[in-house]
């Protein structure tokens, strides 16, 4: 039976990864909002909303 200890399953996520994960997620939300607005305007002008 292996003696692998749970403590060996430990790899710290680097600070830079955490930082960019947070920044990129916020940027992604902002970009998503922008995309929705742009698509809405495009569909509305083209009479393609629904």
């Amino acid at each position, binding site marked *: 039976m292996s003696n692998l200890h749970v403590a060996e*399953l*430990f790899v710290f996520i680097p600070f830079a990864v*955490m*930082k960019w994960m947070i*920044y990129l*997620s*916020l940027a992604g939300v902002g970009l998503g909002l922008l995309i929705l607005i742009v698509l809405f305007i495009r569909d509305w002008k083209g009479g393609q909303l*629904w």
Partner: protein
Amino acid sequence: MSDGAITLLDPRLGWALLCLFGLLWVFLGWYWGRRASSVDDFLLAGRKVGLALGTATAMATWVTSNTVMLAPVFALEKGLWGMVAYSTASFGLFLFAPLSRRIRTLMPEGHTSGDFMRLRYGKWAWYLFLVISMVYSVAWLVSMGTAGGKLMETLAGIPYFHGVTAILLVCVIYTLFGGMYAVIGTDFIQSAIILAGVLLVGSLVVIRTDLRALYDTMAVEQPSLINALMPVALLSLFNNMFFGFGEVFHNNVWWSRAHAMRAEVAPRAFFLSGLLWFPIPIAAGFIALSATSLGVNVIDPNTVGPLVAGQVLGKLGAVLVFVVVFCSLASSIDSLLAATSDLLLQDLGKKILGISSEPSRFRLYSKFIIILLGFLTWVLCALEMDLLQILFLSGPLVASAIWPIIAGLYWNRAHWLAAVLAMLLGSALGLWAYFQIGWYTASLISAVVSMAVIFVSVPFCRQTFDWKKLHE
């Protein structure tokens, strides 16, 4: 240090917000409902919804109060990886994109996911599928209603029963007035509010938090939260993913959207909605990690999101959280009401009970079922049944339907008996795993068992299915 048990908003302000937005949704429901001149208009918004509204409705429906309120809990319990694990629920939307194209190709006049199961596999698979779908849909609906009542009470001191009643009443009324037009139209506004709210609160938390200091503190006091190999996060990664696949692939909420959008729009809309949804759990969740550094003592993790928002934005933050939560609840409840009543009407009413399909009566039945479903939900919410547990238990049920659907759409040698066995065995073994091994295995095991049954059955299937039979 703040006390985690106080409400954030004055009840009068909470009621004012509920009434303001409630009246807005009801007005819009009535206004847009005037477009619906046929049954297809009412049930499927005329099958011509464009990319903007299509993307927004898929995204908003998938953003539930859980996404906004539970994501911080995930962050606190499972750390950074846990938030990413939550985000993988968006993969269901990504993968539904090609499925939606196939659905529109095979069934251009289709209505429900039940239609597909009935025509593809026959009545036994259809009955079983309906049972699975109804258990899940009702559990989701009631858990949303219950969450709404509890959140209104926590955020604004509005008594639970009153909050539940108000939210359900608003959603039932505007869905009644406007059908799918109301649902999709309000979803767009709600999705914009949700995205703006998450962005604003998240950005302010980041500005006011020293991320380096936060990281260093976590490394000492909560090291597991920044462990890339945190066991429960790793386990929930794939389990959540398969739960998500099962939810999206099987449920009529998504099939009705696929039918409501223009055929060429549906795949792009679902893919885009997945992209829009993906960052939300992370953006909404990480604020929980900042709680202590912002002077917020977390006592009940379920309130950490609103507490942190209130801390950084004061009363505005509390209002924002209230509005975002209300929007995320409404955007899911209205979709569930519409799609589940549609499934009951088309599959149970029309196909099994043989009710009249004469347009004016059909539309009347549709409204009656929406009211009935709303009432049933209200009763179950009033009884304060903990259907969140049932919702999680439905994970293995819906995961068992993944492979019958994939195989049914793409393989002409998937047999009805294999579909039935896949759903039965997948559900049974998934539920067994839930209780005997742990919740983090149930959907995964169900999906894998279901997959094995389907794969093993294909060489034994002599018949090939004629795709034209799906065109009813």
